[in-house]
């Protein structure tokens, strides 16, 4: 208890209407004692109506202590306001991602279903459905485990769906596994501005972007299935952010049939992604793509592009600190089948027909051809250490030469027959899971 003293108050003779009082310290102490007796919180009501459940869950999250495990019982639980957790060391656990469902249909307030501002956080075995905004956002923090969480917009892909399903941003040491994201109008699983990240064994379907790794470094993305999205797996760098991304490995994923029309809002980074994109690397460096099964993505199975190809830039200079070029990209030992036969957008369609005929298809790797003029060798090509290297059997690279108005489109240039040193595996420290 703080030392609280009674004091009277007059300012320059001004008469201020206040409640008058004179109390002895003894009585003051007694009042404190009595009032603290009244302040005991009433016991939580038994969970009856949905609104009782919501209030109880909010209160549990607000009053959580490190080490607490908060459980979500089986059932569909309607929630009409954003939930949040600000205490580190808490586990939020359901009975399964098809059993314990938090449904945010008709949510009144909150830009996400659950917002977490905390470290040492685990969420597992529950679903977050139909949020107007993002499903689960984790803003900042270290040692985050997201496991068997499903975020879904149950009406299927639609422009009015929320933006992100599972959205950790500016986190360090993240394990995102065995989760499911369906119907996000931006990215289903989105890891932004983070470091030391493992995204594995998840499923992303019918989002604009299935899985997106943005401005993040040291990320391993493996064992995931991305199907039916506009773009399957994206590795992006956007300008003006606190941290540029690099060093991402994308391997042993299934990336197939990502041909859903782009239903993202214009102006968002993913709005530039053509339907039918398998894996897209945009403006990111040191990206390794290997041992994936990549099939039937109708624009191209892999796209490597720069910020300049997105159409965002306008007439103003980019920030000097931003590197808009994809460099040191290494694509090898993937299994490609189909894809590239029906690209999205008139320009790409026309290009495909002109070069490969009505029944032809694009090569497996599409590169926009933008290069940093400071990083070229004597022949005008990227120096080997920055190159787009492809060691993938018969798979070829199409250089669309967008920087020069596609005046010199090349397929199968020998500059891509190169190698980079392989990236080390991401080591989560401390280990998670």
């Amino acid at each position, binding site marked *: 208890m703080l030392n609280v003293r009674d004091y009277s108050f007059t300012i*320059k003779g001004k008469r201020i209407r206040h409640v008058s009082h004179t109390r002895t310290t003894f009585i003051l102490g007694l009042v404190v004692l009595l*009032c603290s007796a009244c302040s005991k919180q009433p016991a939580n009501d038994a969970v009856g109506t949905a609104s009782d459940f919501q209030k109880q869950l909010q209160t549990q999250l607000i009053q959580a202590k490190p080490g607490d495990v908060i459980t979500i019982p089986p059932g569909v639980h309607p929630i009409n306001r954003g939930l*949040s957790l600000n205490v580190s060391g808490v586990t939020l656990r359901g009975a399964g991602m098809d059993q314990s469902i938090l449904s945010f249909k008709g949510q009144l307030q909150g*830009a996400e279903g659950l917002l977490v501002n905390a470290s040492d956080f685990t969420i597992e075995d529950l679903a977050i459905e139909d949020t107007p905004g993002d499903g689960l956002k984790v803003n900042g923090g270290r040692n985050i485990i997201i496991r068997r969480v499903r975020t879904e917009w149950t009406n299927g892909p639609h*422009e009015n769906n929320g933006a992100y399903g599972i959205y950790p*941003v500016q986190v360090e040491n993240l394990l995102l596994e065995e989760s499911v994201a369906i119907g996000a109008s931006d990215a289903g699983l989105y890891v932004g*501005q983070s470091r030391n990240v493992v995204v594995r064994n998840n499923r992303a379907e019918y989002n604009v972007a299935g899985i997106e790794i943005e401005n993040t470094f040291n990320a391993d993305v493996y064992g995931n299935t991305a199907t039916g999205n506009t773009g399957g797996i994206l590795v992006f760098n956007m300008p003006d952010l606190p941290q540029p991304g690099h060093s991402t490995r994308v391997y042993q994923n299934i990336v197939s049939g990502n041909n859903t029309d782009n239903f993202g809002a214009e102006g968002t980074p993913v709005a530039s992604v053509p339907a039918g994109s398998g894996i897209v690397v945009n403006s990111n460096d040191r990206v390794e793509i290997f041992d994936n099964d990549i099939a039937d993505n109708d624009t191209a199975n892999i796209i490597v592009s720069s910020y300049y190809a997105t159409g965002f830039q306008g007439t103003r200079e980019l920030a000097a600190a931003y590197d808009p070029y994809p460099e040191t990209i290494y694509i090898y030992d993937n299994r490609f089948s189909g894809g590239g036969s029906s690209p999205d957008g008139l320009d790409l369609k026309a290009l495909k027909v002109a070069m490969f005929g009505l029944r032809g298809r694009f090569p497996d790797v599409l590169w926009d051809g933008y290069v940093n003029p400071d990083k070229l060798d004597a022949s005008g090509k990227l120096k080997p250490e920055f190159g787009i290297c492809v060691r993938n059997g018969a798979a070829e690279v199409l250089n669309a030469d967008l920087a020069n108005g596609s005046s010199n489109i090349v397929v199968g240039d020998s500059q891509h027959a190169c190698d980079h040193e392989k990236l080390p595996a991401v080591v989560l420290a401390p280990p998670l899971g």
Partner: protein
Amino acid sequence: MRRLALLFLAGVLIGCSQPARTVLVHPAGQPPALLSEWGVVLASRQRLELNAGVIPYELNAPLFSDYALKLRTVWMPAGTSAQYDASREFEFPPGTIISKTFYYRKAPGWSADRPVVVMSNVAHELPADGFLSLDEYQLIETRLLVRYAEGWHAYPYVWNAAQDDATLEFAGDVRALELVGEASRQNINYVVPDANQCGGCHTPDHAAAELRPLGPKAWQLNRPYAWWGDAANQLGHWADAGLLAGAPQAWPAAIPATDEWRVKVYLDANCAHCHNPAGAADTSALHLNIEAPVDRHYGLCKTPVAVGRGSGDRPYDIYPGRPDDSILLYRMQHTDPAIAMPELGRSAIHTEGVALVRAWIAAMPGEC
């Protein structure tokens, strides 16, 4: 013994029914169930009054809160004072209680079952005699920020139907209101934030994760306030009353009365608690704090990062000369939680704020 116990119980019951008549700082993490037990603002006999030593104050640029009136007060333990700071909020001593009461003037046709209330664009209407008539006003909620040695705690209280006390509601509340303006009416769900959501705004340094007051800064308090009964700067009154230590010889210059500065103070008050270089929204790299230059990070020709359908199919946060192509304005013009900015505390559109920002963008030269 039993008799004693009964007596004690009776004492407890009497204690509970009587509001404290002095300001009490309850221990951290043990807020009382009733607002009256803090003794900061007290309602009785259809009046809301301030307790002794409780000082109301007014800001240059208040946060918009669904056209509510807001009564802000500060109380500090006797003999203590806040430390002046030229740039951030003043450093208040342990034991400080800051309160903010959200209330509306009742509109014609008001009843307890159908609260029809007046949309207000002024900060508050506390008369010089220092009390609010509850015949004229409806109290909605009072939020407390209490300073302890280890930092600030936030407690939300919601006023009861009888309007004689407010109850601690960690989970917040939702109140249906009908707002009446000069030429408009609208129904809103007024949302009382939950205790975590207090931190959604009151944690301007997101990584530090410390609650802080937002209003009591030099530039916000640097103005006269009629409650003091004269036209002198309220900072001067604070200093004269011994509430402010380390004050400078001269108060800061007034904020220039230009359109751009009007916009800058408005965006600071409404956005900068998240949109500053250390804020929760630094993930977007959009910085709207008053110190920030009007450049790309202020939204000028800036493409969004994680805006989702908040973009409204618009390309840039601020597109000079083209308010209807500016995302910032789009988000102010909506109440859908996926689109609306600020994310918390706004269920109505602030038409006057929209007009201010619209005019500024429309008059801005240049191209993206």
